């Protein structure tokens, strides 16, 4: 009886178990879950495309992520019938592609923005926030900081 609790929880074995469980989870998620059940990021990108909304996430001062959600049909404020027609056209490749560049399907990007762009963005955002607080008063504060 040489496999006792001592060896099971010895630091070496514990680390192996730890790494293996991480590896198994990663492989399960990428190979099985994302392919056959759902890929939540992909679903969100599809939602962005269908609703014609692009998302720019500035995680840091000059660094962030961008999801290009421009719809290839121009307008997405349409009824269900037109939406089905549009999606049908897209599946038959009769309309443009969803990507940022022409004829590409790349919709997700890592963004490293320029300092001047950040300053301009800050200026416009500051103007908006100041106006919000000045006009809406107390409720403006609540609206701004509830995000």
């Amino acid at each position, binding site marked *: 009886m040489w496999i006792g609790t001592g060896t099971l929880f010895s630091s070496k074995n514990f680390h192996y178990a730890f790494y293996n469980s991480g590896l198994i989870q990663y492989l399960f998620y990428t190979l099985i879950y994302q392919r056959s059940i759902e890929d939540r990021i992909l679903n969100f990108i599809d939602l962005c495309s269908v609703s014609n909304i*692009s998302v*720019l996430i500035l995680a840091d001062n000059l660094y962030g*992520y*961008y999801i*290009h959600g421009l719809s290839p049909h121009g307008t997405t404020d349409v009824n269900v019938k037109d939406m089905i027609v549009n999606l049908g056209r897209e599946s038959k490749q009769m309309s443009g592609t969803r990507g*940022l*560049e022409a004829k590409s399907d*790349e919709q*997700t*990007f*890592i*963004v*490293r*923005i*320029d*300092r*001047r*762009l950040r300053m*301009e*963005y800050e200026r*416009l*955002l500051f*103007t*908006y926030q100041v*106006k*919000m607080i000045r*006009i*809406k008063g107390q409720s403006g504060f609540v609206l701004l900081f509830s995000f």
Partner: protein
Amino acid sequence: MRGKKKSDEQESEILMASYRHLNEFLCAFVNHSLPTYHYTIRERFLWEKLLNYEFYYTNNNLQGTQSESVFFVGKKT
């Protein structure tokens, strides 16, 4: 009563105008419509993918302190 309604409308319009400015600025930037703010799109190189870090290459065509934004294609690796 009517005056108050009108001033409310005006205030909302001012507020929405500043919001629209912000939105249109970002839209124009993405559409390459702004003459002063450019960006380039490129793939991450292999070593950048491995290190999970984006190196900054200076563009000699741009003069002075002008730099430009870079969009890295965010393919899953």
